[in-house]
Each structure stands twice: as C-alpha cells, then as structure tokens.
C-alpha cells in the first residue's frame, strides 16, 4: 500500500520532469544545442512564479501562464543575442558557452536572492483527496494534469500548426527550409523560447510543491540529459514517458535503495545508451 502510494507520488512528479525534459529535448533535437543552462531556466521560472504570487497575491496556478510568457520572452532574448552566434559551432563551443551562461544566471540569482530556500504557501497547500486508500494532494494532482495537457498542446503545436511545420522543416533540412521561405532565425528564437517557457513553467510547478533556491536547477539538467538520450531526440512521447518513468524510478529508488544509487544507475544507463543506441528507445531522426 505504502509502496503504491510512493509510486503514485513519483508519477505525479514525473509529469513535471516530462515538461523539463521536453524543453531540453526540443532545443537539442531542433537546434542541435545542448543547453547546459536549461536547469537555470527552470530556476528562473520557479522564482518568477514565486515573486508573482507573493507580490500580487495571485493564485500560483494563475501565475503559471504568466511565467510561461515571461520565460518565453527571456528565452527568445537569450537566443537572439547569445545562442544565435553559436548555432553552427562545434559541440564543445556551445556546451562551454551554455555552461558559462548557467554560471552567470545562477550566480546572479544567488547574489540577488541569497541561497535561502523559499516556499509558496497557499490556502489549499495541504488539501488532498482520496481515491480508495490513496492520497492525492490537490496541488500535485493539478500539476500532473497541467503537465500532461502541456505536453499534448506541444504535440499539437509541433504537428498541426504552420510554425510547428516550419520548426520540423528547419530540423530536417536547414537550406531547403530557408529556400522555402522559412525565417530560420525567427524559428530558432521561437524554439528556444518555447524550451525556456517549458523549463520555466515546470519551475513554477516545482515552486508550488517544494521550496526553491538558486542552485536547484543543476540536478534537472542531468535528468534532462538522461531522459533526452533514453527517450530519443525528435520524439514528443519520449520525454513524456521518460519523465514519468524517471519520476517512478526516483520514488522507487529512494524507497528501496536510498537516494544515492539512483545517480549511479542513471548515469551508467546514460553512458551505455550513448554507446549502444544513441537515438534512444523511442527516438527518430526528426519529429
């Protein structure tokens, strides 16, 4: 019984992980950029939601869409003025650059907001409902549902809209896309912005559930790598399923073997997959 409860808790959190991994995977898959600062965007989103909620009294769930918009703009700016200049660079250039970006963002946040943990509390923070003997905190449940909805919307966006088609075309063949009238610069701004928005809204969701601090982001980066590689770039389902599984395994792992080993298993799995089947389990070459 406790066991199933733990699994359920893990699953709920997995929804958030899926959103983070989706943003990371999108940027890597479409723009071929490994964004080491992805975790920092999660953190920024968390703080955005925190500040909006505490300074305006708005319900944190209402703050989430605002956070998404803000982070979309932030991402777009970062892309236009920084990432844009390394799109065609070798991998080590973009990785080192985004690492520097991460250092910059996290340390500015540390300086501005100190390392103290902060929490969002709402009137319904502790409320939960029961399904049979199992306990579902309202906040986590709504977050889980939001994450699923978000993933679904992203899927629709990528597959059914004109911009989504342009994004896929850019990935498949940059020159052809250009020749067909796609404004590649704009597409990259939108893609990176969406990636940042996803990271940010996930951060907001985390802020509703857990205390936050400027250094919270880095562990989500490692997780994003693993899910992106396992689930495969170029797949929407991959990060979703990967995120849910990750949440499950994390919960299971903490219960069975303690928190330490999950890191070892995760990284070893990552390396093995890279060596054996880098396209991942569900991945294709493009969306």
């Amino acid at each position, binding site marked *: 019984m406790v066991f199933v409860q733990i699994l359920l808790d893990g699953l709920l959190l997995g929804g958030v992980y899926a959103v983070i991994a989706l943003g990371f995977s999108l940027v890597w898959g479409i723009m071929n950029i490994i964004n080491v600062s992805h975790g920092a965007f999660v953190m920024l989103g968390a703080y955005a939601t925190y500040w909006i909620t505490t300074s305006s009294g708005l319900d944190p769930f209402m703050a989430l869409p605002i956070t998404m918009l803000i982070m979309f703009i932030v991402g777009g700016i970062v892309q236009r003025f920084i990432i844009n200049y390394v799109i065609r660079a070798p991998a080590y250039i973009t990785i080192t650059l985004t690492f520097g970006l991460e250092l910059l963002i996290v340390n500015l946040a540390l300086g501005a907001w100190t390392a103290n943990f902060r929490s969002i509390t709402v009137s319904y923070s502790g409320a939960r409902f029961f399904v049979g003997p199992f306990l579902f905190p309202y906040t986590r449940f709504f977050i889980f549902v939001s994450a699923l909805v978000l993933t679904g919307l992203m899927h629709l966006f990528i597959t059914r809209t004109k911009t989504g088609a342009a994004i896929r075309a850019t990935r498949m063949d940059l020159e052809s896309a250009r020749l067909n009238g796609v404004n*590649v610069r704009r597409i990259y701004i939108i893609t990176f912005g969406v990636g940042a928005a996803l990271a940010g809204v996930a951060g907001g969701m985390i802020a509703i559930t857990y205390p936050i601090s400027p250094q919270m982001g880095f562990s989500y980066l490692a997780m994003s790598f693993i899910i992106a590689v396992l689930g495969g770039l170029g797949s929407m389902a991959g990060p979703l399923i990967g995120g849910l599984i990750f949440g499950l395994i994390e919960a299971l792992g903490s219960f069975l073997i303690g928190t330490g080993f999950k890191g070892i298993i995760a990284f070893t799995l990552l390396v093995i997959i890279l060596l054996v089947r880098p396209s991942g389990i569900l991945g294709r070459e493009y969306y």
Partner: protein
Amino acid sequence: MTRISVGKSIFFLIVICLLGVFPLGVGVSIIRLLTSIFMYTVLSQSWNIIGGYTGYISFGNALFFGLGAYTTGVLMLHLHTPFVLSLLASAAVAFGVAFLIGIPILRLKGHYLAVATFGVAEAMREVFNNLRGFSGGGEGLSFPLPPGDIRMVSYQFYYLMLLAAILTMIMAYHVTRRPAGYAMAAIRDDEDVANVMGIHTTKYKILAFCLSALFTGVVGGIFGYWVTFIEPNNVFSIQISVMMVIMVLLGGIGTLWGPVIGAFILEILSDLLISRVVEYHGAVLGFIIIVVVLAAPRGIMEIIKERKKLSFSYFLENIRKYQA
C-alpha cells in the same frame, strides 16, 4: 625542427630558476596561488592533448583527477604507502582507467562524446559518494598530515606542482614532435583521411586519452595531500572538467603555451574575484566564458599571432562566424 635553440633553452632555464627561488621571498598565500596555477597548468595542458591536439573534447577529465586523489589518499591512509609511491599508483590507475574507458567512449564524437564523458565522471562521483568504508563515502577522506610547519609545507607543494607542470609541458612538447603528435593532428583535422593514410586511429586516440589522464591523476594525488581533505563532490566536479576546457580555449586550443596562459589568467582572476567580490565570482566567470567563446574561441595565442593586423573586426568576425 626537433631541437630548441640554445637561446630558448637558456631562457627557460632562467625562468625555471626564478620560479625556483621565488617562494623564498613572498608570503604563503602567493605561494599557494602559484601552486594552484601550476596545478591547473598540468590539468589544462593534459586536457589539451586529447581535446586540442586530437580534437576529442572530453567534459569529464575530472574523473582522472578524482581517481588520482582517492588512490593516493586510500593508499597513504590505510596502507601507509609513502607519498611518492602513491603518486605513481595514481598515475597508473588514471592511465589504466583511461585505457579501459577510452576503448568504448572514443568511438563517440561531438555532443555524444561530451555527454558520455560527463556521464562517466558523474557516475564515478556518485559511486564514491556511496562507497562507505575505506574511501569515506560522502563524508570524504582525510589524508595524513604532511610534516613541517605551514611555510615548509607550502614550499613542498609549490615545488611538487612546479615539477609536475614542467614534466607535463615536456611531455606535451615531445608529443607534438613525434609521429604520434602528427597522427593526433591528422585525426583532429580529418579522421577518415587519417585512417586512409595509414594511421591506426583507435590506437592514437586511446594513447592521447591515456596521456591526458596520466599527469591529471598525479596532480590529483598531490592535491589531496596538499589540502588534506577530499570529497567526491570536489574532486570529481564538473567545474574542474569545464575549467580545463575554458582555460585551454582562453589560451589557445591545440597550442603548446595556450593552456599555460589560460591557467595563469583564469586562476589569478579567480583568486582576485574571490577575495574582492566573492558573491559574484561565479557570475563574472560565467560572463568571461561567454565572451571568450563568442569573440575569441581560438584564444590568446591566435590573438598574439595576428597582433599586427588585429582590429575590432577580428572579434566581430569570430562572433558572426557560427551564426545561423
């Protein structure tokens, strides 16, 4: 081609002598700073061999640093092995692990190689975090204390790290002059063509990787004894791995003196920042990384080489070079 001129040799001898007597007239904190610079010279020059000469960019070389630190630590603490012997063991362990890991990992390139090397280092960090018992697990490992007073100790490590730096430089110098060095350069510039011209690319890639691990492991051991206490999150840290990369980028990737310049500048800068504006030290470092990568990715050595026709447009061109 293969011998340095007499003039240059004398110059180096003088520099080394100066470095040799330098500690006698300065305070302990400056000695420590220089010791740190020498250590990072070893790290970045070593990384340069696999990253700069061979073109295989690893983001996990802290793996060898940590393994070296722990090998020396465990041997000295539990088996009471003398320090120098422990360092040799650290070198052997680092070299051996590089060989074993190199065989599968160096089949990867680019992004995948970067993530895989990062993954291996992180996995090892986690392993050591969870290893109770003789290595201390997450609580860390305490080395036996080095003998002598503070000043004597600081001298010892100063000269040790200086020696390590000199040895690493000699190794790097010789590699570039030998067939192996040309094989590595060929692999970097066009691995398929290197293959077709008769180069056993796997052999040379693994050799480069092992050489990059060798002195990295040794200074890991020296580092442990110097700071007396190590823990997995410090010695297997991604920060160390990335520092190696950024120092080499700043100085000049693939050059002989680039890593030295990069280590020198970044360590001094780091030290200054920590002592003046410790809260924003990381932010300034991040900013510098961004600027260097965008405007001067081939580093200071190239700037020096092009100094006669240097202008603002050099940097602008670098910024524009890789955009969409």
